[in-house]
Each structure stands twice: as C-alpha cells, then as structure tokens.
C-alpha cells in the first residue's frame, strides 16, 4: 500500500482563545502515532479528520482528497469521509448485538458487495467469530475493543483512527490486544493514526510519531528517535 499524505491546518475559535492545530504535510508510512499529554490536541485532531468537529478555518486533507477547506467552502459530512474511527469510549451501539454492530458500516455502503467475505476475514483476524450473536452489554473490555475495531474495519476506510485504544484496559489485556492491532497493520494494511500517551505502545505499533504539544508538532520522526 502506498503511503498516504495527511495534512491538517485548522483553527477552532478565534482571538486569544483560539485552538490552532498544525500537522504539516506528512507522508504516512502505515501507522502514524500522535503522542502527547492530555490537552495536546490528539483527540481534537481525530474529531476534525472524522468531521465530528468543524474548524473555524483551515484545511483537512487525506491523500488527494480534501475533506475540509474553509476558503473553498468544502466540508464533507462524516458519512462521506471514508475514515474509520474507534473512539476512546468505543460507542458500540447498545441496542444492537455484536454482528449488527460490526455490519452497521458495511450496510451503509450501497450494496455492500463483499460484506460477508470481509466479515469472515475481519472476524477471523480479530477472533470475534464466537461473539457475533452476543449483546454488546455482555462483552468483556477486550472483546468490546475487538468488536469496535471490527466495526470500523468493515467499512474499508481509507484511514483508521484509534483514540487511546488500550487506555481503558488493564495491563495484561493490553498485551493481548496489541497483536490484533499489529495484525490490522500487517495483514489488512489500512493506514492508521494511533493516538496514545504510552511511549511503549507507540514504539510497538507506529512507524512514525508526532509529538504534539498544545496543537503544535514538537517533534516528528521514528518512535525510537523522538520518544
């Protein structure tokens, strides 16, 4: 898979309270980590790329697609951005079972030609085959995480964004989920933005890391060098 270029130069609010976020044009290898303390703008960056927050000015591009451009009056709605987003709280739909959660995105795509093949592949990769008919309320933390990853992957996104995917899990579970993330990276190959404040995780998953500090890139490079 070719590296994809993301670029984000946006401003939220104006005047002295404005929050500015600048990720310069970078060619992502496959996994980019956004690393930094709380308030650095990591989740905000993901929300802006997903279209869940609307900047007051600036541009958001992925590859050669313009998702937002204030001057050109371009603002693609979230459903048209082809960006998978696993939020920190996962937001699995509580009224649907695992299968219907996982298939939700596939059903949004018209016709969903290869949904069942894709489901088989994703279910095998993330080992959720046995969970598909369970209500989400009965899943353990690690199972919920895998279900949410599967749901995001089913839409075949151009970019997968994971917001602190391991933060809510205890130490031993983190160790068990990590191989699934590596499998997504190595087997499916979807480009990933991985938000974390754990240097260990970033070193293991990401090929490139941006250290964010109050909306600005304080350092950029391979995780082993910048963290």
């Amino acid at each position, binding site marked *: 898979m070719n590296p994809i270029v993301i670029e984000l130069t946006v401003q939220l609010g104006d005047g002295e309270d404005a929050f500015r976020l600048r990720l310069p044009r970078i060619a992502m290898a496959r996994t980019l980590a956004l690393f930094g303390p709380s308030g650095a703008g990591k989740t905000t960056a993901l929300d802006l790329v*997903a*279209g*869940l927050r609307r900047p007051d000015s600036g541009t958001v591009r992925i590859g050669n697609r313009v998702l937002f451009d204030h001057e050109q009056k371009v603002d693609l*709605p*979230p*459903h048209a*951005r*082809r*960006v*998978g*987003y696993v*939020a920190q*709280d996962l*937001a699995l*739909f*509580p*009224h649907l079972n695992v299968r219907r959660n996982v298939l*939700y*995105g596939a059903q*949004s*795509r018209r016709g969903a030609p290869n949904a069942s093949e894709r489901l088989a592949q994703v279910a095998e990769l993330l080992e959720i085959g046995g969970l598909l008919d369970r209500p989400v309320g009965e899943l353990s933390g690690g199972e919920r995480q895998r279900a949410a990853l599967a*749901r*995001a992957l089913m*839409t075949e996104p151009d970019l997968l964004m994971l917001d602190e995917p391991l933060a809510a899990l205890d130490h031993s579970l983190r160790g068990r989920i990590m191989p699934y993330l590596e499998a997504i990276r190595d087997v499916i190959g979807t480009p990933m933005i991985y938000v974390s404040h754990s240097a260990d995780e970033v070193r293991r998953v990401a090929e490139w890391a941006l250290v964010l500090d109050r909306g600005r890139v304080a350092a950029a490079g391979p995780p082993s060098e910048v963290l």
Partner: protein
Amino acid sequence: MRAPADHRRKAVLTAELLEVTGFTLLMAALATLVMLPAGMALAWLLARYEFRGRSVLETLVSLPIVVPPVATGIILLKLLGRRGPIGQLLEPLGVEVVFTWRAVVVAMAVMGLPLFVRAARAAFEQVDRRYEAIAGTLGARPWRVFLTVSLPLARRGLLAGLVLGFSRAVGEFGATIMLAGSLPGTRTLSVAIYRHAELGNDTAAMILIAGSVAIAFAAVYAANRFARTP
C-alpha cells in the same frame, strides 16, 4: 313492572358506555397518530438544534398545558371556523372541521401534543450523541442515523410520551366541547359524563366515570412501564 324498565335502562346505559368509550378511544388513537409526526419533528428540533426563536417555539408548544382548555378550544374555533383563516382554506376542499368528529381529533391532538413533545424531547436529549457521531463515521447518512440509532435508543421515552399524549386526549374536555360540541357524533367520554351530571343522571355519569378511570389507569400504568428501563 319496575324490573323490565330497569333492565332496559341498564341496556341503554351499557350501550352508551360501549359506544362512547369506543368512539373516545378511536378519536384519541387518531389524535395520537396526528401527534406522532408533528411531535417527533418538534421534539427533535428542540432537542438537537439551536436557532433563533427556539425559546418562543418551546413556549408555544407548551402553551396548551397552561392556557385554560376552554380558551384553547375557542382559539381553535376561531381558526377552524368557516370564517377562520384555516377554515377558509379547508372550505373549498369540502372539509368541515368544527362540530364534526374531525374537531374532536384536532382538539385532542392539540391538547396532547405538549405532553408528547416534552417526553420525546427528553428522550432524544438522553441519547448519547457519540453514538450518532460514530454512526456517521461508519457511512450512515443523517436519516439512517436517526432511524437506526437515535430512534431505537429513544424508544422507551417516545412510547411513554405517546401513552401520555393518548391519555391526555382521552380525558380532554374543555377544548373538545368548544370545538366539537356535545352532539351524538362528537360526544366523548368526558363530554358525556358532564352532560349526564348536568342532567342529574348520576348513575349514568358514574358508569362512564368508572370506564374512564379504567382507561386512565391502564394508560398511566403502561406509560410508567415503558419509561422504566428493562
């Protein structure tokens, strides 16, 4: 000779109870159907959007709870009467509202709407918007998000609100008697109770009261059950 007369009276009262109850339930059901789309749209608007005039709309929707129902009835009469602004529009279409069964439905719907909108709005506000946002990132257009995420997650509150609106419609009196009168084809339970009480037919009034208490009990019980989480 008293026994046969008593029998006949009982038969007449039972027939009236059944007829009036059936008519009232049917009209309240129709009024609920009218409330449903209008109320959902209003509740969604109030729960999800900031716009100019929002507070005014919010107040207008709640007004029928506070204004005396008789006054609401008179306002509706002015609007829907032959010379009223809406009545004039309906006349060429051959639709007459005032003093017909349609007037009963309109009065009931207007009086029940505020209760439904309040409950539906609260139900929509309680839906975690993260679910809607994530559904969007999964490729679902706003309509699909509404139908597959917002609506199912708000369903208990919506159902409870519908039952409340329906109950209000069943018990509605003041606006109904002004707009629909007390005619054989427009007489609801509460209007019939009032008429019997006024004429001194206490037994008949009590029978109808028992009927309306039973309906009210069932409706409120159902609303409470719906509102409770499983």
